């Protein structure tokens, strides 16, 4: 019994460490033409359909479209450009970061 508890505890610690070590992976896209929330619905719709997408954040103020990726997954730049074009917009810049979407959301809430 004791060995089972130790093994379970070890597994728990390992899991926590594994999650802590996993960097948050975010795709940040600077998008031109992003001025109307009603018109930009297609961006979120298309990005959320991607298997690698965990969450999506759109800011009209900073012209930012950010995608939080699921672990060990990515979306190719060419696919991103195609998706945004199909939504009617133009990507100016794509970069990958470890910034969680919560950071962008908190910044957007500030007056």
């Amino acid at each position, binding site marked *: 019994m004791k060995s089972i508890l130790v093994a379970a505890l070890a597994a728990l610690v390992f899991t926590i460490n594994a999650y802590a070590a996993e960097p948050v992976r975010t795709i940040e896209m600077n998008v031109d033409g992003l001025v109307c*929330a*009603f*018109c930009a619905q297609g*961006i979120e719709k298309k990005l959320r359909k991607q298997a690698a997408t965990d969450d999506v954040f759109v800011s*009209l103020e900073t012209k930012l479209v950010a995608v939080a990726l699921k672990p060990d997954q990515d979306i190719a730049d060419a696919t991103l450009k195609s998706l945004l074009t199909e939504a*009617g917009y133009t990507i100016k810049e794509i970069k990958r970061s470890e910034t969680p979407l919560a950071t962008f959301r908190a910044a957007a809430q500030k007056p």
Partner: protein
Amino acid sequence: MFKLHPAYALGAAILLVAGPLAAKPIAFQDGRTLMYEYGAGTMQELQAYYAPRYWYSVGAGYLRLDQEDHRFSRDITYTRLNYLVRRWNLSSAQANVFVSGGVGAARGSDFEGTRFAQNAAVQADYETLTFYSSLKSDWQRSSEFSHRIDTLQLGVAPYRHRYDGTATWVVAQARYYSGGLYDGVEGALLLRLFRGPVWFEAGVTTDRKVQTMIMFNF
């Protein structure tokens, strides 16, 4: 001598001042748009479109036109193709030019039976987070009538809306109807709100009549 309608002159001035020139008839690839507009008793229109690509949509509509003194009315059912001629995605603005065309069937209170009808439209728009302008000319004709509805809209937003928030716009509109539908240019002041995939606007015209529109993108 060529005479430029005042609405076009103002639209041209906006284009010159604001640069290249958005309620848009095309949402996004695989997007659907449903629109209903009640135009102060003179026009009512229901439109439904599907966009296979971001640059064109196909759909159908129903337009009811009532002459302001109730001398005649039109009921036009039509199909339409909307095509995005050009889009400018700028760093802090977006501008578009659309053209549309189609065919349909029309009935009128002042003639017997159903007539083959054609329709064509052109729309240019320019918007930022706080300024909106659009100029649209929508033409419907048959062997019995020819009506054009020219609409100029200028809007300002009292605040910069967030993607997940409610957008508020105050929009001034000038509308001209040809073919004896309405005498002069009809003005209107509208309050436009949109949030998520729902767009709603309502206001009053210079004749103190109600104008309203609701639109969904999905």
